[in-house]
């Protein structure tokens, strides 16, 4: 993993999460803004996946448990899709909060992925 990219990614996910929770509390239904923020979070996860695959070949070797790392990454990739599906089915302010909850969960998961990448197995 690339530390600065991961840091930026966590920051984006936190901002997107807080924004959507705030929009939901304000009574806003899922909009281009909230779904766009979620799409950005998902896009960064896809970039992270590419980084994780390419990094070892460029000398950026992980020392942690890669099974655990990829379980996190694949789960993280699913979360925004599930939240977006939810938002399209249920058009209420609660869906906006669900989007926010999902983005905040991604922030935690990406933070954990960085820990796993850098923590030696055993």
């Amino acid at each position, binding site marked *: 993993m690339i530390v600065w990219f991961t840091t930026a990614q966590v920051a984006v996910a936190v901002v997107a999460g807080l924004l959507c929770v705030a929009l939901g509390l304000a009574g806003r239904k899922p909009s281009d803004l909230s779904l766009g923020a979620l799409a950005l979070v998902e896009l960064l996860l896809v970039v992270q996946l590419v980084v994780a695959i390419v990094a070892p070949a460029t000398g950026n070797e992980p020392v942690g*448990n890669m*099974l*655990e790392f990829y*379980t996190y990454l694949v*789960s993280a990739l699913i979360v925004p899709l*599930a939240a977006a599906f939810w938002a399209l089915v249920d058009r209420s302010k609660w*869906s906006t909060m669900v989007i926010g*909850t999902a983005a905040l969960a991604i922030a935690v998961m990406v933070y954990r992925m960085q820990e796993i990448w850098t923590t030696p197995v055993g």
Partner: protein
Amino acid sequence: MIKNTGAARATEASRERPARISGIGRILVAVYGVLALAATGRSFVQIVGRFSEAPVAYSLSALAAVVYIVATVALIRSGSGWYRLAWIAISFEMAGVLVVGLLSILDPQLFPDDTVWSYFGRGYLFIPLVLPILGLWWLARHRPTRGAIA
């Protein structure tokens, strides 16, 4: 003016509530979904990666994961059968987090590696401890009283 109050609101409310879950309950379902995913992911890693190290703890992780999935689905679906299933699943979680949480403190040897429920769900911000309480409270407040709602 009268038209806009009672009846109109009631029909609007019933139209917006096809399922049992509505309002803040949806956030409960979302958090349950995330926890189900977290528990499933963890037990997948434990069982695929190192099952022989702590079979009891890892089997328990898998069981917990299944129960979280059942609880999530049961909360979403309406009908008295699902309602009962939600009660069973969430009560089981409550008992699980209390029993395993207590045992892991009294006798850490029993669980050499963490499960979702070890130390009352410490590894998951105590969400596994708080969630069943909220879930049971929510279920108690939302009994399917109006006949057998399909």
